[in-house]
């Protein structure tokens, strides 16, 4: 089920009403969340529910097994079993065809005949998200950061919690799981804040991301309508990468906002996933602000165990490359994602070696109305670097990405086609950036910190709702980009 689809707007009020009707009956509330989450997921393809159930049962028992024994060898064995089973499911469904395809290419490149073919396996929606979430659970029990969950229903609801099941934020068991064991009382302010955050998420997705997508698809091309990049001027291609930067940000952070907002309606607090990443002053800061739940996951469960930024330069280099390449590969079974990760590592390494990677740690970019020229320049450079990296992320192949980038730099920077500079889209983006900048110290723009009359607040909400309603596509469903991961 998509957040931006009619069934969700029927589903959510029903689940909301039932949930609060079961007030003070925690077990029943958890059961309701579990059933609702399975309905939510099964709406897309009920057959793949079996994977979530397997993942849930598997980690439930292994988590308890790790917790119960003090024998270190056994604990390690159970943890390895959990990791292998989770990565096994992920590997089979997401990466199997990629490895087969590359094996075929390798065999054929040395002149041999490859008698194998890809298995054409369908990738279950959100598999990368929930497998990582359940892995964090067993790892944290192994590290004795938390106790194992005894209640299988609560654990199942944690794994499949519908607001964040298919595209995150990838929650830590230490944050989310205890919330399923805590009695909830309805909080008016939190619920209203949840609705506001969801409204902001819908605006990002429907108005910004989907509008950018029209132009991105025309510039980058789609499998049905491929584009000859050489026929487009560099200025248009550059615009395409900028539009994609906004599309993917508004799409993904919009999803996160809707997820966090929806969870608030049920009294759950999910972690923040984006913190205005395009206002970053360097790539290190960008990665602290972009897809925070994934980058912190890799930091805690991969980067630090590898040694992090300790050790000699070679080890630092190795760790950075590993974390970025793996992060890229997590997104999809394609060399383009690996290249995207590697390119970000290349951006990051000079900062690490010059000890500048933790230079911009303060969350508040600036308290002044406008940034200084120096800050503005560093934001702009970081944004351009990010846009260039996004070309790999969006392209169908590495070859396409290189052609695209080389065509950007052919220096015919005269926009000969004003079609791509649609005034409405440009003004929407300008408004979006201004609003994000203005609210950079809040989680969403509807957090009115200064006293503001109700009529003004409501007028603003109505304005946004009307813009969303008049921008939505009611005839074609528009998936969230990160569903495929």
């Amino acid at each position, binding site marked *: 089920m998509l957040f931006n689809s009619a069934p969700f707007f029927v589903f959510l009020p029903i689940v909301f009403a039932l949930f*609060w009707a079961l007030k003070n009956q925690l077990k029943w509330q958890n059961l309701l969340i579990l059933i609702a989450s399975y309905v939510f997921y099964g709406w897309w393809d009920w057959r793949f529910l079996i994977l979530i159930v397997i993942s849930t049962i598997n980690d439930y028992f292994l988590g308890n097994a790790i917790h119960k024994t003090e024998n270190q060898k056994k604990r390690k064995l159970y943890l390895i079993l959990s990791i292998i089973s989770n990565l096994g499911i992920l590997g089979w469904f997401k990466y199997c065809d990629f490895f087969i395809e590359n094996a075929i290419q390798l065999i054929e490149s040395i002149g041999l005949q490859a008698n194998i073919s890809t298995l054409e396996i369908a990738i279950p929606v959100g598999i990368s998200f929930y497998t990582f979430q359940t892995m964090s659970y067993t790892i944290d029990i192994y590290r004795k950061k938390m106790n194992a969950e005894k209640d299988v229903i609560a654990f199942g609801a944690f794994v499949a919690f519908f607001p964040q099941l298919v595209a995150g934020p990838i929650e830590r068991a230490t944050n989310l799981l205890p919330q399923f064991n805590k009695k909830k009382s*309805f909080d*008016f302010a939190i*619920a*209203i804040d949840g609705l506001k955050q969801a409204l902001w998420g819908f605006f990002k997705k429907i108005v910004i991301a989907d509008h950018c997508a029209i132009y991105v698809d025309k510039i980058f091309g789609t499998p049905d309508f491929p584009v000859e990049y050489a026929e487009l001027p560099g200025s248009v291609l550059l615009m395409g990468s900028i539009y994609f930067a906004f599309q993917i940000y508004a799409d993904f952070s919009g999803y996160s906002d809707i997820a966090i907002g929806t969870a608030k309606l049920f009294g759950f607090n999910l972690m923040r996933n984006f913190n205005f990443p395009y206002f970053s002053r360097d790539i290190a800061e960008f990665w602290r602000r972009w897809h925070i739940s994934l980058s912190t996951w890799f930091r805690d469960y991969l980067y630090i165990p590898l040694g992090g930024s300790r050790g000699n330069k070679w080890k630092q280099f190795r760790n950075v490359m590993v974390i970025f390449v793996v992060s890229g590969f997590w997104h999809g079974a394609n060399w383009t994602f690996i290249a995207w990760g590697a390119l970000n590592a290349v951006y990051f390494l000079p900062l690490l070696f010059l000890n500048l990677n933790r230079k911009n740690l303060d969350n508040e970019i600036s308290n002044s109305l406008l940034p200084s020229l120096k800050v503005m320049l560093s934001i702009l450079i970081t944004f351009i670097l990010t846009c260039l990296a996004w070309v790999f992320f969006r392209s169908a192949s590495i070859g396409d990405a290189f052609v695209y980038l080389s065509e950007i730099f052919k220096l015919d920077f005269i926009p000969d086609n004003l079609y791509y500079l649609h*005034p*409405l889209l440009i003004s929407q983006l300008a408004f979006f950036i201004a609003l994000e900048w203005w609210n950079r110290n809040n989680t969403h723009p509807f957090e009115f910190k200064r006293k503001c009359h109700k009529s003004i607040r*409501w007028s603003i*909400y*109505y304005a946004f*709702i*009307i813009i969303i*309603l*008049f*921008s*939505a*596509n*009611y*005839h074609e469903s528009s998936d969230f980009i990160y569903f495929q991961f």
Partner: protein
Amino acid sequence: MKRFLQHISIFAGIGILLLNGIGYVLDQYYGKLNNQFVDHKANWIFKKNGENLDYAVLGASRAYNVIDINTIDLTAGLTGLNLGERGAGYAECYILLEHFLRKNSTKLLVLSLDYPSLKSVESYSYPFKEYAFLPQFEEDSIEFVFQDVLPPHKFWMYKFVKASKYMEFNSKYPFYDNLIHFGIEQEYQKIEQSKGSKLVNKNQRVEGFNTQDMEEITGKVQFNKLDLRYLRKIIQLCKSNDIELLCYSAPLYKDLYFARGYENINNQIDSLAASWDFEWNDYSFIPLSQQEEYFADNSHLNQAGAKIFSKQLARTISEKLKAN
């Protein structure tokens, strides 16, 4: 929770009022502009005023793209217009005709009637293009058709949340684009010159035709109830306005004709014509059907074919008018 529900109810209530206000403004705005931004023939037909025609042609693409009014007028010395629109089922045709007759008249209606038009839901990709009539939704005759054709939830939404229809078709009524682009008007100037016809200047007939549908193979088909209902309403509209009715089926390429059980299908249409008392001329398998060069595709004549067929039809129209 009570406070939350109160807030949400008040907020939703005001929101619905607001959307109705916006819907009212948009109805006025688009209504005054006579649908001029919508890419649909309604926008041309609704502007017609004071036309006294000898005949008008109505139907889907096998009227719009296949009947050349200039050829008929020249051949028979008549005055006609082509009111056909691509992919229009009879419900849509009914609205177009009913609106046209409010300010104009015709002695004869030449109506395309064939297998695809009697099964418009299956044959056409969008047999009722409601978006073309949104500003006129409140008119009784159009509201009646909408209620009949649209799913109930959609109809009631349009009725009680006026803006919802423009929200749904925001790509057809893009407020911002409408303010800066005035392209569709120019498109309809061409149609004015051709008196509503749009002939297809190509010869790209699809090779071969095979159907898996047993109904089609045997020719024992069930016509769509909605199409039959609106065909009947068109017939009644003609009677109440003293308009003679001449139904026809335009030529089909021989492959298509033989692949489907057209003999049986056309016998069914013959029976329908007899029981409902209207004249139906079947041209679907005239000698022209054998000649590939006159077809744009299996079911549409191209420009050259349309001119030949229109000459033939001109004689029938002329005779029909003389007889009355």
